[in-house]
């Protein structure tokens, strides 16, 4: 197994040739997502297994009681850990943080933590003294492209599925202490999730550069082209935009843009790297497409949540515990 994953040049030219004829290797259309499957653990809250095609990610949400930061006494803590182990692909080393690991953690951080998906004020127990620290650990099991998207979907679904133990505060003034009721005694409490961010990655292919790569013209002749015809207005057809690229497409793409959107038509973050200039119109239509994908994914998450809720509610334990029952 070679240490790095770059495919051979024959594979590259084959994929690029297919793209110039608007064909993808796994016969998906350009804006079609791979089949997405979300499953929740039946024995524990907050464990989500997301499969996006061959990419597989497990998110694990956990909570414990700690002290809030001094400068933000009314806010609980929310930490997301996205360390990639060599299990995802042998190119990732256990210790060192590789460059795309950095990009992934920054985008997931912006998509979920900075966009305020989890209301941290609701995590405060006693302001300045005790608060909940919610931690999301993302484990990357299999890397076939789209790690950012899978991680973001996994953490969002995990936050919705997670239940923290119920607590009561006893005593007054400085002698207050917190009693944590185990899940068997009291119905655990869900987290205050304000919106469901879904990250979508668009990969750009410059069809002109792709065709020149195939016809064996090196980049120098391509640079000559640029000088004499830079007047020619680039129409949209020369840029191929792929949604949810596989690892091979990811390694070959000339540029990418990651957009996080949610179902109330809000864009949480956009990160378009500098690797390939793209027309403004294309970027806008990509953001719109991201909202459609977000709606589709959120619908699937809610469907799976309902199924999981039903499975757990065998012998309608929840019905008995509901507040409306006459006491």
């Amino acid at each position, binding site marked *: 197994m070679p240490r790095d994953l770059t495919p051979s040049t024959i594979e590259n030219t084959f994929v690029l040739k297919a793209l110039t004829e608007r064909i993808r290797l796994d016969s998906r259309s350009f804006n079609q997502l791979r089949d997405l499957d979300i499953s929740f653990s039946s024995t524990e809250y907050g464990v989500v297994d997301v499969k996006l095609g061959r990419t597989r990610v497990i998110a694990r949400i956990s909570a414990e009681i700690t002290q809030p930061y001094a400068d933000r006494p009314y806010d609980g803590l929310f930490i997301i850990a996205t*360390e990639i182990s060599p299990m995802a692909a042998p190119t990732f080393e256990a210790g060192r943080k590789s460059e795309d690991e950095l990009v992934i953690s920054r985008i997931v951080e912006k998509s979920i933590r900075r966009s305020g998906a989890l209301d941290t004020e609701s995590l405060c127990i006693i302001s300045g003294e005790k608060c909940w620290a919610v931690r999301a650990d993302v484990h990357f099991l299999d890397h076939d492209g789209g790690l950012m998207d899978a991680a973001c979907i996994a953490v969002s679904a995990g936050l919705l599925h997670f239940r923290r133990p119920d607590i009561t505060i006893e005593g007054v003034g400085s002698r207050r202490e917190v009693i944590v009721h185990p899940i068997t005694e009291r119905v655990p409490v869900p987290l205050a999730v304000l919106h469901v961010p879904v990250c979508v990655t668009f990969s750009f292919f410059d069809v002109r550069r792709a065709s020149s790569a195939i016809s064996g013209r090196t980049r120098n002749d391509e640079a000559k082209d640029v000088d004499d015809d830079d007047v020619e207005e680039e129409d949209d057809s020369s840029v191929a935009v792929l949604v949810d690229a596989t690892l091979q497409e990811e390694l070959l793409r000339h540029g990418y843009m990651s957009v996080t959107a949610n179902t109330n038509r809000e864009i949480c973050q956009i990160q378009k790297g500098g690797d390939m200039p793209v027309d403004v119109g294309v970027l806008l239509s990509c953001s719109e497409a991201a909202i459609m994908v977000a709606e589709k994914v959120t619908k699937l998450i809610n469907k799976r949540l309902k199924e999981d809720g039903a499975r757990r509610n065998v012998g309608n334990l929840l019905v008995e515990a509901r507040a409306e029952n006459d006491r």
Partner: protein
Amino acid sequence: MTVLGPAQRSPATATTAFLYRVDGSASWTVGTAHIIVSVSGPMEVNKRDELPDIATLEIVVRPDVGVASTREQFLQDRIRRVVGPVIALELHPRTLIQIVVQIVQSGDTKTLNTIALSASINATYMALLDAGVPVRSTVSATSIVCYGTSSIQGGLTTGVLIDPTRPELEKIEKDITSVHTIAYELKGGQIERLLLSESVGTFTEDEVFECYDTAAKVCEETNGTMREAVTKSVQQKGGWRD
């Protein structure tokens, strides 16, 4: 003090060959523990850790929550002690065999560390088979928890839990007297040698021997489960025959 009480035992399930980017993968689920192990290799090794006559064995253990700490170091060392002698490292000199153990649900309580260890050993062995790494014999491990609850009438009822789930553990956590993690080497379904015996707590000599016998029976059962899982996955994967 004889060991009383039924030895309840939760069934274990194993699946293999579900990860595409690595050579071999396996998942082991017993009670509330769920471990996924991937094996890559024999592949290139970087200069620093190359060994002239045998393959370098690298084991990485990732916890389910939080960052790797001493608990993971402990698991790493024990897995290396059990799996190391079983793999025929000398057949692939100057190469690297990389084992990554990802604990999805550890099944242990805060203080214990045994369920994750026994499940990891079983999962690692299955992943090695799936990766086609040459091994000398089969390995299987189990966790045995002995507890003694003194009921109000003063009688001391002791019991044994084999690969218990976390709720069961939490129920008897206060009364646990000793915890044993035992791994056997089997050849042709028969127990050959004792590979690992990790015992924590207070126990008498015959209690330990009692645990060894129970563990032997359990390991033979686990071996059966492994055999079924491997035959199923080989049939699915097409195997070399058809």
